[in-house]
């Protein structure tokens, strides 16, 4: 879920290698006659990174234009080799992963990439002195070594099926960073990577200017320069897009819909794994009753939320695995519209009788609870109000409360919370910590203390098994169990909306994660974009 | 007090021998306030001739200064003016000072043709300018040589070195002389001097009065507004007595001082220390509530029922005007 601040961390979407592969695999329409690198492309986003350093969370899920990881993702989010010559190999016990580096890759300063740089990058993340929140994601790594200049070996504490998905992290040059305080080094502001673009300048609060890396191993970018304009305010971004300043900008669905009728622009609504839902804490006496949770699940009008709040840019959500994922279980999908009658029947059957003021009650306890939402998030506010209105129709009184995260934190055990997250890459990534009982009550991991042995087993199975078929079965069971227990009220998957100038060619939208800023956005492959 | 003390005034050419320079005809000034209307000047008629020195005397608040400001078009926005005040100059068209408009007044009249020595010199000087800068500015605005500043200072009895001081560094008398010099700088044909001797010691009073007298002798006209009767008697050709917004008596200086016709003028003279030294009984009326009849009636020893109800007539006497139902006949002075 996002914090108060928009999610800055994982930025630039495209990876160098991915770009190159797109050239090969997707027959990107780069016409041969267009001169190499004519244009300057300008894209606008609200999310500005704090530091342009992968060790400090920049470009984690894709090495973000400036850097490359060992692997990258193509337009279908499949892993493809990047700095590695092929996808790294995993030992039969699942605890040793070996990658071989591509030859002759150079950093922007001309230095040659070696396995030591890769080892350094991962060691830096694991170094407790470095203020990196990535460390939690790499818990399983015991050691990273570089036996020779082109080989990197990861030793894991335990087998971890989706480990290769963690190797998209951008690689930094050890020569420039070793011995430095990574938290404060000047590198964070003007970094050196291997990616298709070099950092020319970064004016915080204003723009990041990138210039083409002529020596990029994936081929020279089609555009000389890319400017990423940071405009935090949605309305201002829309105004400036309207004024013709940007080639592409991310906008909230409602603002984007203003461009639908204008042929000079194209609105792209990109499917995502980014869901919104209500976390229902087991510590709340009303919500602890599964009947109440199931009734709410029936009562919410997801279709109205998609059309009324998202302006059509989304899909109803029924679980944490997006419909676009190969792991999605079709049987857990419910009806998008509300069924207040069925919901009321459920409540009646469970003993929640209509009481005073239209609020049901059971054993003298009225059916009411507080629904918290982060105050700065308009979308979550709107959804919280929609849930409140739907609940009212079946006699459950919800009190919305717009709060800051620090006010939300201590109350998550007993008050419902409008949360959101999701990545398309692997179902283990978020769900393992979000729904396992071993993380119950640990911060944001399983704040509602949901406990289910079936779910726990399924999640562990999905993580341990290498065989995709077994994993798929495990996650199907996981989704079914969630649909039965309803620890969350899944509401909608978003579509991230972008407005582009019609003249921009070569976009290849891929299913996006919750976090999308400079890079994991529609312009992940901007190095291959052209103008018609 | 006898007229023989008046010195040069006796020798001056009498009023009425030259052409009228200023004719004021039925002048009225009213101020609208939030909840009242103040009549500061009512139905005022006056003639000033070239070479004449007219003194207007009266108690504070009787409308003297308002008259001066009205003639220069300097009244605030809530004032309404009626009547006429026509300035005749030999070499130009007559100008009605009341109706000609601010633009004309500013460009053609003020300073050059009608000058003003303002009252309360302490506040009449720009606090952030030295006297020399003010003088130079005024001289330049009227096409004179700024080097005349020193001579002007000497004329009014000011040490030229004091011109380099700021107003707050000047004594009251020095400031008074400076504002006089400023008014004299454009050499106006009509000079209105509003209490020009305040704060001056006796020799300087005489110096200033002589200066004004000399201007008249050279053909200019001066209206001296003052409550100093002795000064008026010393230099004025004619004296107008103002009471509660009206001129109650306007006559030749000697006549007025020897035989005042209006009871108020008489009472005023009686208040002088070298005469009866008897203050005028009662208080002047509020200008917001002037009685329909004679404003002096409540304080007048000669009042009758007519006085309270009928406005006094203003018959033209052989040597001036008296606005009274029961003017005192010659020789009534005690």
């Amino acid at each position, binding site marked *: 879920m996002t914090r108060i601040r928009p999610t800055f961390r994982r930025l630039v979407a495209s990876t160098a290698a991915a770009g190159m592969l797109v050239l090969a695999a997707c027959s990107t329409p780069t016409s041969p006659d267009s001169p190499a690198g004519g244009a300057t492309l300008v894209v606008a986003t609200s999310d500005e990174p704090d530091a342009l350093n992968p060790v400090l969370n920049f470009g984690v899920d894709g090495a973000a234009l400036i850097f490359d990881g060992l692997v990258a993702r193509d337009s279908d989010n499949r892993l493809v080799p990047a700095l590695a010559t092929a996808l790294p190999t995993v030992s039969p016990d699942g605890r040793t992963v070996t990658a071989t580096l591509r030859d002759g890759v150079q950093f922007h300063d001309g230095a040659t990439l070696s396995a030591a740089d890769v080892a350094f990058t991962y060691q830096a993340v694991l170094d407790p002195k470095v203020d990196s929140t990535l460390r939690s994601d790499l818990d399983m790594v015991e050691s990273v070594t570089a036996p020779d200049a082109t080989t990197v070996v990861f030793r894991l504490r335990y087998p971890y099926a989706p480990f290769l998905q963690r190797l998209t992290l951008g690689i930094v040059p050890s020569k420039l960073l070793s011995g430095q305080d990574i938290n404060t080094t000047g590198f964070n502001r003007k970094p050196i990577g291997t990616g298709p673009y070099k950092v020319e300048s970064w004016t915080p609060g204003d723009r990041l200017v990138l210039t083409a890396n002529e020596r990029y191993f994936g081929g020279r970018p089609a555009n000389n320069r890319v400017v990423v304009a940071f405009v935090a305010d*949605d*309305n201002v971004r*829309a*105004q400036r897009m*309207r004024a013709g300043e940007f080639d592409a900008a991310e906008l*909230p669905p*409602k*603002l984007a*819909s*203003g461009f639908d009728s204008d042929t000079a622009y194209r609105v792209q609504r990109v499917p995502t794994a980014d869901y919104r839902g209500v976390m229902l804490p087991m510590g709340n006496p009303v919500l602890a009753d599964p009947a109440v949770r199931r009734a709410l699940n029936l009562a919410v*009008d997801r279709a*109205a*939320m998609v*059309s*009324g*709040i998202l302006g059509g840019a989304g899909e109803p959500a029924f679980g944490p695995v997006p419909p676009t994922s190969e792991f999605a279980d079709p049987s857990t999908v419910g009806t998008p519209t509300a069924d207040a009658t069925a919901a009321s029947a459920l409540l009646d059957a469970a003993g929640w009788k209509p009481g005073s003021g239209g609020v049901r009650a059971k054993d003298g306890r009225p059916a009411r609870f507080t629904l918290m939402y982060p*105050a*700065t998030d*308009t979308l979550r*506010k*709107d959804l*919280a*109000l*929609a849930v*409140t*209105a739907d609940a009212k129709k079946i006699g459950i009184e*919800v*009190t*919305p*409360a*717009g*709060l*800051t995260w*620090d*006010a939300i934190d201590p109350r998550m055990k007993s008050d419902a919370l409008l949360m959101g997250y999701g990545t398309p890459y692997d179902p283990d990534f978020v769900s393992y910590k979000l729904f396992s009982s071993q993380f119950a009550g640990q911060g944001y991991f399983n704040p509602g203390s949901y406990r289910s042995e079936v779910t726990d087993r399924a999640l562990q199975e999905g993580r341990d098994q290498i065989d995709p078929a077994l994993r798929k079965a495990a996650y199907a069971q996981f989704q079914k169990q969630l649909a039965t227990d309803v620890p969350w009220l899944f509401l909608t998957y978003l579509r991230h909306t972008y407005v582009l100038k019609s003249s921009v060619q070569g976009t290849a939208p891929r299913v996006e994660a919750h976090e999308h800023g400079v890079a994991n956005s529609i312009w992940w492959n901007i190095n291959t974009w052209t103008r018609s | 007090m006898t007229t023989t003390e008046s010195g040069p005034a006796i020798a001056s050419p009498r009023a009425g021998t030259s052409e009228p320079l200023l004719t004021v005809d039925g002048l009225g000034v009213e*101020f*609208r*306030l*939030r909840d009242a209307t*103040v009549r*500061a000047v009512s139905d005022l008629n006056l003639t000033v001739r070239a070479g004449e020195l007219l003194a207007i005397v009266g108690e*504070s*608040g009787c*409308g003297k*200064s*308002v008259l001066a*400001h009205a003639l220069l078009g300097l*009244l*605030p*926005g*809530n*004032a309404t003016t009626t009547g006429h005040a026509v300035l005749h100059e030999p070499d130009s068209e007559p100008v009605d000072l009341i109706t000609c408009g601010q633009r004309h007044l500013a460009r053609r009249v003020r300073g050059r043709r009608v000058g003003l020595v303002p*009252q*309360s010199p*302490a*506040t009449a000087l720009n*606090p952030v300018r030295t006297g020399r800068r003010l003088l130079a500015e005024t001289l330049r605005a009227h096409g004179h040589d700024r080097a005349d500043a020193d001579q002007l200072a000497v004329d009014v009895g000011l040490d030229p070195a004091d011109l380099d001081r700021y107003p707050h560094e000047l004594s009251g008398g020095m400031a008074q002389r400076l504002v006089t010099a400023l008014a004299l700088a454009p050499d106006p044909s009509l000079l209105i001097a509003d209490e020009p001797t305040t704060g001056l010691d006796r020799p300087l009073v005489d110096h200033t009065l002589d200066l004004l007298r000399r201007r008249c002798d050279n053909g200019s006209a001066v209206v001296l507004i003052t409550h100093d009767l002795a000064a008026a008697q010393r230099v004025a050709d004619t004296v107008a007595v103002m009471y509660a917004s009206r001129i109650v008596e306007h006559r030749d200086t000697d006549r007025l001082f020897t035989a005042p016709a209006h009871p108020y003028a008489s009472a005023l003279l009686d208040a002088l220390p070298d005469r009866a030294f008897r203050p005028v009984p009662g208080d002047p009326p509020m*200008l917001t509530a002037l009685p329909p009849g004679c404003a002096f009636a409540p304080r007048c020893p000669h009042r009758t029922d007519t006085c309270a109800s009928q406005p006094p007539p203003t018959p033209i006497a052989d040597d001036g005007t008296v606005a009274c139902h029961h003017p005192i006949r010659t020789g009534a002075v005690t």
Partner: protein
Amino acid sequence: MADLATRPPLLHLARSRLRLRPGQTGVVIAGLVLLVAVVGSLLAPLVWPLDQSAVALDQTRLAPSWTHLAGTDDLGRDVAHRAVYGLRVSLLVGAVAALVATVLGGVVGGIAGMLGGRVDRLLMRMVDTIAAMPHLLLGIFIVAMLRPSLGAVIASVGLTHWLSTARIVRSELLSLRTRPFVDAAISGGAGRFRVLTRHLLPHVLPRLALATTLMIPHAVWHETALSFLGLGLPPHLASLGNMINDGQGSLLTGAWWASLAPGAVIVVVTLAIAVLAARWRDRLDPRVRAELHL
């Protein structure tokens, strides 16, 4: 500088007219506006109750009509209805914050004015220094540290707006202390407290009340600005600031009415308060030029 006493009374009278004074009709209109605003926002819960969290997703962004006088917003909520409640909340925040500021300013100014001397100099220097802190920055700081909420907004406005009150109270007390009736009371054996409550308070209170009133528009703007920056009241609450903030997006998509009504309410009500306060100040002190101090 100018010594009023030496001026002839006539021209002095004329001068006093120059004050900037709203016309009689303006005062009447302002009074009516304020009356409607206050009575309306007081009675609203009884006459026209609002469910703050209600939405109608099938009626979003309807243009003004007879059923929705000021149209509906992004979530299908009646703009006019919410504007009434927005005014209610904003006036409440404004009034409470102004009251907090007045108490704070009254205490500091009172201490400085009563004790005088070194304490006075020290306190006034402190006031001067704090006055040099940009209100909005200090307000943002306070809200950021206390977390955005009704209480934080009130604290932020109250803690940054007491300075002028302190100055007014202090100078009033200092000038009163030199008046004969205070001397008389003290020489008559009255204690300091008694002098304060019996003799000084009645003189200072009207001025204090005026300062409080003049502060309300300030407080309303401050609240609006904080909400605009995302640092204000909980966003689903109908406050004028939140509504304008919500309406911004609609403005771009053609639904201009969503921000028009709350904006107009702010402008009209704050202007009305200012006009009335200007007249009031005029009454209190006819010698001081009444400058609309918004």
